[in-house]
């Protein structure tokens, strides 16, 4: 006889809706913006097509800084959340708590780095 677990003690998750919505928002932002950004900051800049002054202007606009900040935070949380569940899917469910702490911690550190890079 196989004993299935008692599910009477289950409860709605209070953290996953928040994390999942940030994951989803970050995934959408990443899907829309990351490919074109990689093309420009990875290849077009390397080809010396864009002048320093143009870049300096561009990253100087407050609106651009705000958009970049929002994008960075959401995309980092997206990546952290996805990596956490990828590691779980690789059979590391036992370590979900430390993995989650590590992933979201890294996203938080990255967000602090975004503040420093963009606003200081």
């Amino acid at each position, binding site marked *: 006889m196989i004993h299935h677990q008692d599910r009477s003690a*289950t409860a709605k998750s209070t953290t996953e809706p928040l994390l999942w919505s940030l994951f989803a928002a970050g995934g959408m932002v990443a899907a829309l913006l990351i490919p074109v950004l990689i093309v420009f900051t990875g290849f077009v800049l390397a080809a010396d097509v864009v002048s320093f002054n143009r870049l300096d202007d561009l990253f100087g606009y407050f609106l651009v800084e705000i958009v970049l900040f929002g994008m960075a935070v959401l995309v980092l949380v997206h990546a952290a959340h996805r990596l956490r569940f990828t590691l779980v899917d690789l059979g590391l469910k036992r370590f979900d708590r430390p993995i989650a702490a590590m992933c979201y911690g890294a996203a938080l550190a990255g967000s602090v780095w975004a503040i420093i890079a963009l606003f200081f």
Partner: protein
Amino acid sequence: MADETITLEVSRYDPDGDSEPTFQSYDVPFQEDWVVLDALNYLKDQVDGTLSYRWSCRMGVCGSCGMMVNGVPKLTCAVFLRDYAPGPIKVEPLAHFPVERDLIVALDDFVSKLQDIKPWIIRDVEKPLDEGVYRQTPAEVARYQQFSMCINCMLCYAACPVYGLEESFLGPAAIALAQRYNLDSRDQGRDQRQELVASDEGIWDCTLVGECSAVCPKDVDPAGAIQQAKVASTLDWYKSFLLPFPGRRKQKTEA
């Protein structure tokens, strides 16, 4: 043509003697119009009566002949030998479930999960019989009809690595069935189901591998059901901050 054969490698397990399953090879006549289940029936009738497996309707309705065919969960009544020619064809019990004997898996976990999500219409107060039936418009039926086509064949569980890794995961069919009732205009039981569906063992475990929907013989799309349940549960969560005194939810606008 008549003496052409194809090889079946069938997983065998005798719980009273074997420590683990082994493969046994059989040559069966290669018939153009035979499905894999026909070949198994031939084996049981003509070659080896000890071979054990489940089947019933042989027409894709009962959902009992699900097995792994060359590593992919299939209804064996719906895949032809010719699809796998020249063979060999590997036939195994559905993945991720404990094996009872040969190609038969234990159903206990799946059945208990189906019951746990309360797959019936729940009313706050049943209306008296003499007031007649609960009526629905075609549009109201359309909302849940797709999720009501499930035949409990468990192919989706055999395709789901999340379930394979973690048996506590509620799983594709059970969540799709919960959505089937949550989306029914006659039902008022969503809050009761949410305790389990929106728990850590429910929708949040799913990483949208998507194979549950790919292998489903009835196009139920459990992966879609789970994603839509995530969206609805997330909206619930945000609304719980916007509305300090949540009243009774209107069923039809949610889920």
